[in-house]
Each structure stands twice: as C-alpha cells, then as structure tokens.
C-alpha cells in the first residue's frame, strides 16, 4: 500500500507544480512506482511542465465519471522508469469532482503505486478540499515572502482542522544573496513563524525555467542546484536522512576583502 502526498501552498505561483513534477521524477528515478495527479481542473499545467501535453487522451474527470478506466487515463513517462501522470481536465471546473470521489480515486491508486503525488490548485475552495481529501500526508510549499507565508499558515490551519497530521515545509526560491543582506527571511525565520517541520530548501535557480521550457524536470539536470535540492527532498520522503545542502555564498565586497586579508567568516 503506497502513500498519498498532497503538494499545496494556498498562494499560487510559489512552485507547487514544479515541486510535484521534480519530486515525482526524482522518486521514480530512485526506483519507486510513482503517479502524479493534477487536481487543478480548468487550469492544468503539470502535463506541460512534465512535457507530456501531447499524450493526453483521458483525464481525471473522465475517470471519476466512469468514461474510462484509471489505467486508460494514466500517461506513462517512458524517460524515468515507473512514472505516470493522471492529467486534470482543462474544459471543466473544480466542481466536476467531489471529495468523496477523490478519496476513492486515491484509495485505488495507492494499491498500485508507492507514491501518489497530488498537485493541489491554489486557493482554499473546492479544488483544495478535493486535493487533500484522499491524502495521507501534506507538503507545504512556501517562498520567503509575506504573502506566501501568510497563505501557507492558513493552509496549515485548514489541514489541522481536517486532522491531517504534521505537514512538512518546503521553502522554495530562496535567494542566499538576499538572505545574506537581510532582505529575505531565512530558513530559521520561516520555521519559527510557521512552526512546522522542514522537509527541504530549494534555491531560486534559472535552470528551473530552462528545464520547464524543455519539459524535462530539473532533477534530471546534474548541474542544477534546484534539481539537487529536489533530489535530496525526494530521498528524505523515502525516509533517508539527508543533510541540507549548503546555500551560503561569499560574494559581498566585505566578504571578498575579508578573504583577501585572511579573515574568514566562521
């Protein structure tokens, strides 16, 4: 019996879909059987991020309505071992599915897969309720900005109310240079404010844009910092103890000067 993990955030544009695509790909690369479920009905994007947009025949609404079997709607990603995508419907809206149907679907999927990753839509309405309905665990994606942290806190409260135990935090798009200047909240600030466990930190990285342009998740790029961060998070999901990667940088004038004269930061 596998595990259903929902990737959620409240706020849009903080990296839920990117996180789902990368973690799913990384888990599949590690040898697990993984299915990605896009629940953002009406605004589907996991298909393009994964580069599978041309292979969609059936979608999640077709499955729920009994138009097709689950297996017929699953798209196999041949590049990364046992990775599958269940795409969202693009021409319907969030009310096309209810929480009970979603619970059933998740129950079916976790019989066949080690990990069922659910890409949650932004917001706290029906789409969110559906996405969390069948989930065993939750990953909260938040960027170090006030709007994202506030929304993440709201989501954590709603998950508590739904009796989902201890969601884990992924801090996304952290900019070490801004943290160093004191112009961006750091990892400790985020944990202190949200008071949940940290699962990982993904630095801001332009390779994410490039890999998304290509439809190949950044975890497959050995030179991508964000990809490395996502690979680490995937290993933590499987229970492995992986230390946080070093994101500190030394590029300021004073740092260079200090280095030059032999005084180094401790």
């Amino acid at each position, binding site marked *: 019996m596998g595990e259903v993990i929902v990737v959620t955030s409240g706020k849009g544009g903080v990296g839920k879909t990117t996180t789902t695509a990368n973690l799913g790909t990384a888990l599949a690369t590690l040898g697990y059987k993984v299915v990605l479920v896009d629940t953002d009905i009406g605004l589907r994007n996991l298909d393009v991020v994964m580069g599978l947009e041309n292979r969609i025949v059936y979608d999640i609404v077709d499955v729920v309505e009994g138009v097709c079997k689950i297996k017929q709607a699953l798209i196999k990603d041949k590049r990364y071992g046992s990775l599958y995508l269940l795409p969202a419907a693009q021409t319907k809206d969030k009310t096309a599915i209810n929480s009970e149907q979603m619970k059933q679907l998740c129950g079916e999927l976790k019989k066949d897969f080690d990990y069922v990753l659910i890409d949650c839509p932004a917001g706290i309405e029906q789409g969110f309720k559906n996405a969390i309905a069948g989930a065993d665990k939750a990953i909260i994606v938040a960027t170090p*900005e*006030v709007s994202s*942290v*506030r929304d993440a*806190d*709201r989501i*954590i*409260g709603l998950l*508590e109310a739904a009796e989902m135990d201890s969601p884990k935090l992924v801090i996304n798009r952290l900019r070490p240079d801004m*943290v160093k*200047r*004191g*112009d*961006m*909240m*750091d990892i400790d*600030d985020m944990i*202190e*404010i949200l*008071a*949940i466990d940290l699962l990982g930190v993904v630095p801001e990285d332009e390779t994410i844009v490039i890999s998304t342009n290509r439809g190949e998740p950044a975890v497959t790029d050995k030179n991508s910092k964000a990809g490395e961060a996502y690979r680490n998070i995937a290993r933590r999901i499987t229970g492995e103890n992986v230390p946080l990667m070093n994101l500190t940088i030394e590029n300021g004038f*004073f740092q260079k*000067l*200090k280095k030059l004269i032999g*005084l180094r930061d401790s």
Partner: protein
Amino acid sequence: MIDFIARFFKKDKQSKDLAKERLQLVLIHDRINLPPYLLEQMKEELIGVIKRFTEIDEEALDIGIESSDRTVTLVANIPLKGEKKV
C-alpha cells in the same frame, strides 16, 4: 573592525525583520479569526464583567495574546483590589 565598518553602513532595521514582525502579528489574528478591533472589544467587555464583581487595578492590568508553536493563548494579568462594596 571590518564588521564594525560594515555594520556602520548598514541601515538600522533589515527589511526581513519587518516582514517577520508584521507576519507574526497578522498571523495571530488570522489563527484565532479575531481582528484587532474585536479583540479590543473583547478585552473591554472582559474587564467590564470582572468589575461587576470586584475592583480591579486598571493601571496595572495587562491582557494580551501570546503565540507559541501554533497555539494562541489569551494571557490576562488583572490585579484585583478587593471585594466590591454592595
């Protein structure tokens, strides 16, 4: 020495500290679903109820909201002066 010079040129408050302070305050109200004006009203009514039974030291009273680990607590320190004469 260099640290001292670096600090000298830096602004007093870093913007991330502002973000943190503002968030911590707004999240308390979000979490208990009680905006600041209603919290004030609640405090006043609470004081009113206590005053019906006993005299309190209004100068020294302190009612506030504290938050730790996602649990928000109403903390009231209300010094009582003694039994109210009927």
